[in-house]
C-alpha cells in the first residue's frame, strides 16, 4: 500500500529532520508511530498524507511514485487517506454534520446519497445528538470524535491520526482507540502518531519509533 525507501527530508537549507527512512505500511495493518517530541512524527505524517515531498528517496503510495506523480492526481490519492489532525481543523462556521460530510461534499456527491451514512457514523462516534452543533460549542473530546468521523466518512484505505488522544481523558482515549481498532477490523490500515505509552500498551501492534530523525521498527 505504501512504501518508503531511503527517504530523507529537510526544510530549506537546514539539517535533515528525517533520515534514511525505509519501511512499508501494509494493507489492513495497524501501527503506532511514536518517539520523543521533535523526533519528526508530524513531518513523517505530513509525508504520509502528501502534504510534503521528500528531499530524497522513494515514496510509493498506492502504487504511485510521488516523484513522478502529476499534481492533478493528488486530490484523488488524498481521498483514499483519512487524516485526524492534532488540532482537529474543524470549520467553525459549519455544523458537526457538515464538517463530517465535507469530504463527500467536495467529492461532488449529492447530499441525499450520503445523509443517512453520515448520521449513522456520527451516532457511532457518539455524536448523534450533536449534529447541528457548531465546533466552538463542542467539548475537546467531541471535537476529537468529529475530526475522527470526518477522517473516516469517505472510507479511506489508510487512516492517519496525529495525537488523537492528546486532548482527552484516559477513559475517552480508550474509547477512541477502540474506534480505530474497529476500523482496522473493517479493513482500513491505521497509523496513530502518539507519545502516550499507556495508550500503546492497550493494544498490541507494530510500533514505528522515530528517534533523532531515524526510524526503528518493532514488529
Amino acid at each position: 500500500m505504501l512504501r518508503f525507501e531511503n527517504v530523507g527530508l529537510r526544510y530549506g537549507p537546514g539539517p535533515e529532520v528525517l533520515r534514511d527512512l525505509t519501511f512499508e505500511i501494509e494493507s489492513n495493518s495497524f501501527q503506532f508511530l511514536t518517539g520523543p517530541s521533535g523526533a519528526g512524527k508530524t513531518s513523517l505524517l505530513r509525508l504520509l498524507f502528501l502534504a510534503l515531498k521528500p528531499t530524497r528517496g522513494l515514496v510509493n503510495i498506492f502504487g504511485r511514485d510521488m516523484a513522478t506523480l502529476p499534481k492533478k492526481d493528488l486530490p484523488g490519492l488524498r481521498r483514499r487517506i483519512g487524516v485526524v489532525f492534532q488540532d482537529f481543523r474543524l470549520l467553525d462556521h459549519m455544523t458537526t454534520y457538515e464538517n463530517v460530510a465535507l469530504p463527500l461534499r467536495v467529492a461532488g456527491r449529492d447530499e441525499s446519497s450520503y445523509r443517512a451514512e453520515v448520521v449513522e457514523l456520527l451516532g457511532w462516534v457518539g455524536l448523534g445528538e450533536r449534529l447541528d452543533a457548531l465546533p466552538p460549542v463542542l467539548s475537546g473530546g467531541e471535537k476529537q470524535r468529529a475530526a475522527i468521523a470526518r477522517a473516516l466518512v469517505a472510507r479511506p484505505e489508510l487512516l492517519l491520526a496525529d495525537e488523537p488522544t492528546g486532548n482527552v481523558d484516559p477513559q475517552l482515549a480508550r474509547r477512541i482507540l477502540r474506534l480505530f481498532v474497529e476500523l482496522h477490523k473493517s479493513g482500513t490500515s491505521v497509523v496513530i502518531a502518539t507519545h502516550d505509552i499507556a495508550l500503546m500498551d492497550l493494544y498490541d501492534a507494530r510500533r514505528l519509533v522515530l528517534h533523532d530523525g531515524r526510524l526503528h521498527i518493532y514488529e
Partner: protein
Amino acid sequence: MSANAAAAPEPKGRPASKTGPKPKTKTANAPRARRQGPIVPASSVSGHTLVMVIAIMTYLAALTAGAVDLVRATAAGWERDIVRETTVQIRPADGRDMNAAVARVAEIARAAPGVVEVRPYSEAETARLLEPWLGAGLSFSDLPIPRLVVLRLSDDGRFDPAALKAALEREAPGASLDDHRRFLDRLVAMARTLVALGLGVLALVLAATVLSVVFATRGAMAGNRDIVQVLHFVGAKDGYIAGQFQRRFLRLGLKGGLAGGLAAIGTFLLAELTAEQGVGSAAVDQMDALFGRFQVGPTAYVGVVAIVVLISVLTAVTSRVTVFRTLRALD
C-alpha cells in the same frame, strides 16, 4: 491485542462497512433534508470591510468617470458652437457706403459654400451692442464704427474660410473675415487639456481602486486560509476550492460595487435635478451659457456599469489567485 483492549466494550460495528451492504439512501433515522451551509462563510468582519472598501472605491471611481464625461461634453460643446459661427467685420472709410458694403458682404457670404445663415447687424443693432460702452444716441456719422455680419455655418465642413477671405478682399474692400481661429485654437487646446487631465485623474482613481480592492480581498482571504487548507486535505481539487471562493467573492464584489455604483448614479441624478431647479435664474443661465447644461451623459452611466463589473470580476479573480497561491504553498 492486549487483554485491556480486548476486555473493553467494543463500539457497535461501524455502519455500512466496506464489506457490508451499502446503506439505503433513506433510513428511518435519517434526518430530513437540510440545507447545507456554504463552504465559504457568507459573512465575516473582513467580508463586511471588503464590501465597504469596494462600495467607497466604486463610488469615487464612478463620480470621477461622471465628472470627466461632463468636462468632455462641455469641451465638445464649446468646440462645436464656436466652429459653427464666424464674423465679417467691415471697417468704415472715407466715402464708403457702409450699408451698401454690408449688403455686398452678405451677398458674397450667401454665395459661399457651407454658410447656412447670414445675419447683417443693422445700425440700430450695432448701436445697441455698443450702448454699454458708448451710451445711447450713438451717431454713426460722427464715429468710425465698424459693422458686423454674422455667418452661421453648416456642420458638414464645406465652409472654406480661405476662399471667402479671398472673395471679400477682392470684392468688398474694408471687409475682413474673423474666423475665430486664434480664439478657437486656444479654447480647443484648453478643452482638450481639461479632458486629458480628467482622463489622467480617472486612470489614477481606477488604479487606486484596483489596488485597494486587491489588498482588501487578500486581507479578507487571509482569514479563510484554514478553510483552504482543510478543503485541500480532505481531497478537494484546486479548481473546486478556487471556485467556492471565487463565487463568494464575486458576490461580495457585486454587493459593494452595486452599492457604490447606485450611490454615484443617485448623486448624478440629484445634481441634475438641482441644476434643473435653477433654470431661469440669471446666474444659472450664465453658467449654462458658459459651461453648458449640467447633464451627465449616457457614457457616464455606461462607465459606472463598467466600473461595477470590473471591480466585481477583479475581486473574484483576486480571491482565485490567492487560493492558488495558498495551495501552491501547501504542496
